[in-house]
């Protein structure tokens, strides 16, 4: 069986039309880094589960992408993270939502899957579980980027002033 890995990387409100050549090159490099991280696992006969974790961690560590270090802000100006993972070999699954803290949210989801009898933890309970599982936790400042903060301010300003939504579909999802 020849292994294969695919990835997607959301970049929030960075629109294709406003992307410079340098930014585009950086995004491609970020995607390649994630692919190489996953391929490094698969090429040694490693598990698909470990490969997807390696690839997602690389994307979470890159502030260009809106997960983990590049997490976006909610309307209250606070960062929240969600992550989920599933192993097709035995239908084990884990997920976390509505917390800020784990340096790599996908490791939190994996810990729920592997170290608890449950599938989904949310909010303060999820954060407590992450700490008890020994995950590396970070302050909110680790995840904050000025670009994400500006995106929030722009969106809140649009709402305050009643400007019409431009209906760009890239804005509609994280």
């Amino acid at each position, binding site marked *: 069986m020849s*292994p294969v890995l*695919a990835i997607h990387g959301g*970049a929030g409100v960075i629109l294709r039309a406003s992307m410079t050549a340098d930014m585009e090159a950086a995004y491609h490099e970020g995607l390649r880094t994630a692919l190489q991280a*996953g391929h490094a696992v698969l090429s040694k006969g490693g*598990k698909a*589960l470990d490969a997807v974790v390696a690839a997602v961690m690389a994307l979470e560590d890159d502030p260009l992408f809106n997960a983990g270090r590049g997490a976006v802000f909610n309307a209250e100006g606070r960062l929240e993270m*969600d992550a989920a993972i599933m192993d097709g070999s035995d239908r084990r699954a884990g*997920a976390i939502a509505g917390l800020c803290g784990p340096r790599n949210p996908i490791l939190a989801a994996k810990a729920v899957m592997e170290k608890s009898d449950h599938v989904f933890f949310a909010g303060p309970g999820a954060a407590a579980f992450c700490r008890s599982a020994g995950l590396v936790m970070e302050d909110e400042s680790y995840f904050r980027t000025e670009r994400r903060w500006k995106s929030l301010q722009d969106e809140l300003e649009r709402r305050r002033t009643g400007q019409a939504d431009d209906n760009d579909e890239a804005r509609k999802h*994280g």
Partner: protein
Amino acid sequence: TVGAVALDSAGHLAAATSTGGMTAKAEGRVGDSPVIGAGTWAEDNTCAISATGHGEIFIRHAVAHEISSRMRWGGQSLKKAAEGIIAEIAPLGGSGGLIAVDGEGNVSMPFNCSGMYRGVVRGDGSLETAIF
């Protein structure tokens, strides 16, 4: 939202999805796609899925699990099942897309909106990346 799906040399599938959510989302909203069955699913012999999109629609349509169901019960290919559900939810407000791999190593990456970033690496190490 970021995510990955993979098939390993033993024939096993896995999926992972991680997000910060939508900018300025309501506090406490879990509406983006890392929900098991909606945006994340893996089941050997059918497919592994990771989605990004308007999460409420993905949840209501159990999009990731729906692809697996269409393959198991409808005998559909990965491509037909994945492209079919993404096309069906588009007029309902379900903007977004997904990445998918099946148990034979076929890959499908349909989307119905802009702002999509994709990549795939095959067993020989060949890489492809794309931005739309």
